[in-house]
């Protein structure tokens, strides 16, 4: 521990942290651009300058480790003047095209100009250096060089995190520019992160550009469904459609990053949704759908229930309870035929199911293909696109009544005798347990689309139609029961944030 004095108050902090992080522990925000807790400090933007007694020159807080006895001033006259001066320099060649800039509303220049600048401009617009406005860097990212403040966060991200030297700060002085190497593109599997860490509107997302102004977005903390890692994310929606996914810092899981696949793994939520229940005779109301499902299940000689490692722990537990209460003779097997992808040493895990571990803990793993071979008369598939993932299973499934609880019109839902719409993870509460056994909650950001219901509510309805009693007063009650029944799920894991990364 180190004792230091921050703006006149003596404070105690852990050793080895820099002044930006140390001050933040006490709610003192030191403005900064180039510093990011996940990257090596470079000290180039000079925005974080603070006064340390005994040192004549201002010091950069990002590169100064707190030390015993240090007396630091973050709001002295000298510091405040310096910030205004740095802001003036940063804006000297900045195009100030906020009206057409995607970053407007979450831009470090706007924020700190209001907090620390507010100077009158001493530059005429025509005196500014013009640079390239629309540089195609790679599949995800566009660069506007005029807006770039040359903080080098993006360069350091590629070097240090993605492990590829794809970006470089070329040229000197006022001609400095971010660029890829000649003939090369920014295409590492984590490239999208540079969009998030760029403190200004220089790097924008091809996927999100010009879609919606950020102040219209509504946000919820969630978990990426893309693989077993369970990266923490924010889902952001406008008019009940997901507009973008951003990483949410969690030092234990994904630090500040997500992979590009995870970033784009949302389009299916907006597209090809199953809006109403449909049977062979046409659309059904939710109640009719539950009755119809009950009828099919009752008439079947043998039933197989298929659980999915993409379902939440709570939905998986509800399915177990459904079997016990309503169809005690039915087989219940979990599994997925999603092709694994190649994992890496950064975040991506080979298994593309976010809740494989939870499913195992809940005792639902098993031999899915074997169970299908036993030729059940009816197969109820929950949140699992068996046919889409393995078209060759069509033969095995031929002649069996298929009931699909599905959010989308996937191949399995299309083939089903009855398909009932359910909510995606973006519309419900739930939890997944990642490969390390860490159970993490996600929260709804969208309203249920069409007549989709949470899986456990559909199961309740079918159980009711089957004359069984299965009911939870609310999601909380289901969650409590789930975690009681399966202590190995542990408790919901907190998400330790990531320091002063959000400017």
């Amino acid at each position, binding site marked *: 521990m180190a004792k230091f004095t921050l703006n006149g108050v003596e404070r105690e902090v852990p050793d080895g942290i820099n002044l930006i992080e140390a001050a933040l522990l006490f709610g003192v925000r030191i403005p900064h651009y180039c510093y990011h807790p996940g990257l090596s*400090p*470079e*000290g*180039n*933007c*000079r*925005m974080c*300058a603070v006064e340390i007694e005994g040192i004549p*020159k*201002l010091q*950069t807080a990002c*590169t100064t480790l707190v030390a015993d006895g240090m007396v630091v001033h973050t709001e002295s006259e000298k510091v405040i003047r*310096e910030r205004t*001066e*740095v802001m*003036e*320099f*940063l804006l*000297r*060649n900045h195009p100030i095209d906020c009206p057409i800039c995607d970053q407007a509303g979450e831009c470090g220049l706007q924020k700190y100009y209001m907090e620390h600048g507010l100077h009158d401009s*001493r*530059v005429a617009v025509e*005196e500014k*250096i013009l640079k390239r406005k629309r540089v195609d860097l790679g599949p995800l990212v566009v660069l506007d060089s005029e807006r770039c*403040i*040359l903080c*080098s966060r993006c360069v350091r991200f590629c070097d240090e995190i993605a492990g590829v030297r794809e970006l*470089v*700060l070329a*040229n*000197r*002085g*006022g*001609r*400095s520019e971010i660029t890829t190497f000649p003939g090369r593109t920014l295409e590492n599997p984590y490239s999208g992160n540079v969009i998030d860490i760029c403190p200004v509107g220089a790097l924008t997302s091809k996927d999100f550009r010009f879609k919606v102004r950020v102040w219209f977005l509504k946000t919820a903390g969630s978990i990426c469904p893309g693989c077993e890692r369970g990266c923490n994310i924010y889902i952001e929606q406008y008019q009940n459609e997901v507009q973008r996914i951003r990483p949410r810092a969690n030092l234990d899981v994904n630090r500040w990053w997500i992979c590009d696949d995870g970033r784009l793994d949302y389009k299916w939520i907006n597209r090809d949704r199953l809006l109403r229940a449909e049977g062979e005779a046409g659309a059904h109301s939710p109640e009719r759908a539950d009755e119809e499902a009950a009828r099919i299940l009752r008439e079947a000689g043998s039933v197989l229930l298929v659980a999915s490692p993409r379902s939440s722990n709570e939905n998986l537990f509800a399915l177990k309870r459904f079997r016990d209460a309503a169809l005690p003779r039915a087989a219940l097997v979990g599994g997925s035929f999603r092709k694994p992808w190649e994992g890496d040493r950064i975040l991506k895990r080979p298994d593309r199911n976010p809740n494989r571990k939870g499913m195992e803990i809940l005792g639902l793993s098993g031999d899915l293909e074997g169970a299908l071979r036993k030729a059940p008369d009816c197969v109820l598939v929950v949140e699992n696109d068996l046919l889409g993932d393995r078209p060759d299973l069509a033969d095995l499934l031929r002649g069996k009544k298929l009931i699909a609880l599905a959010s989308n019109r996937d191949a399995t839902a299309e083939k089903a005798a009855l398909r009932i719409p359910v909510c995606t993870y973006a519309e419900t509460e739930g939890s997944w347990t990642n490969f390390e056994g860490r159970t993490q909650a996600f929260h709804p950001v969208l309203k249920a689309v069409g007549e989709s219901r949470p899986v456990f509510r559909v199961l309740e309805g079918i159980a009711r139609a089957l004359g069984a009693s299965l009911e939870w007063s609310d999601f909380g009650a289901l969650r409590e029961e789930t975690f009681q029944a399966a202590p190995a799920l542990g408790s919901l894991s907190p998400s330790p944030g990531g320091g002063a990364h959000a400017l």
Partner: protein
Amino acid sequence: MVNPDSHALVSARAAGAYRASAKALAEEPEEIVRLVKDSGLRGRGGAGFPTGLKWTFLPKNRDATYLCVNADESEPGTFKDRLILEKDPHLLIEGIVIACHAIRCAHAYLYIRGEFCLPYERIRAAAAEAYAAGLLGPNAGGSGQPIDLTIHRGAGAYICGEETALLNSIEGKKGQPRMKPPFPTNVGLFGKPTVINNVETLANLPFIVENGPDAYRAIGTEKSPGTRLMSVSGHIEKPGVYEVAHGVPMRGLIEDLAGGVRGGRKLKALIPGGSSTPVLTAEEAYAVNVDFESVQATGSMLGSGGCIVMDETTDMVWALDKLAHFYAHESCGQCTPCREGSGWIAEIVQKIAAGNGTRKDLEKLESLAAQIVGNTICVFSDALAMPVVSHVTKFRAEFEAHLADRASSSAAP
């Protein structure tokens, strides 16, 4: 009497080269460090830092040490290292051998300015001769220790003369300065403790070793012992490099040695230590001596000894325009104040020089110069601010006369 082959090993040997290094190699390294400390030798790269003291900053326990020889010499007005490289490269190599022994360095790197063609050829040939003669190599000078020398050519960036940018450049990275601390003596080239010394600094070592600190101190002043290579350029009859004992009057250097101001004109201004040092008025220039302390007393610096002479016909706005342009071009661009400020300053000076500047522009110029000082990774921005401030304050009337909205004395009808 000029020897056209002064750069060759035979000539150097005939003049006594490598006697001092042989003597040094037979001594304990600590003894050499002590000699150099006692001699009071100060760095000739610009800051005048005591060389022996710098060496003692190396950590006691270290697995490797590097010496980097700074031969980047890109400061406008300074061209004395070039002379050593061209005419007496073995003096430098001998200095390198002595320094390597003193700091226990087995591998020295010489970083030479990319545009130095002949100097590069000469130092390369000299190194080859030294290797062939066993003065460098696995058993340098028969000492049983290895001393290798790698010569690395720059690619045309002034900033690579800044010692940490130089390290990055040798490592194959972009030549831009590093944050300090850590200082190179702790974490330098390839992460190892490293000493960076200027060419001329090292060229002083053979004399010190051979003749002892007292003989060295017998020349020059107390605070600036030894001699100094002064590069004299500009409006001068005999431009060139002059070796003078520290402490001689500047007037003597200009008027006598260098033949006086061109065409018998009057001196108007003088930059004493390379373009980064504040300009002196003629009066100030004639009052100083060629040593660190006397120039410092005027608020300027002896820096790298690059004397730029400007006669009475010089337009000081034009002169500053050239300087500002150079700095805007050479800022490495990392730090916000330097990157943006250097370009902005150059633009304003150019505007004033073109007769389009206003009183406001002049004020802006002064405030910007103040704004870029003190909050950057290296002192490049100070090296720009100082000439700006000194030009504008010492020759203010000239700047005002250039302004578009000057108070017109001879109002045209």
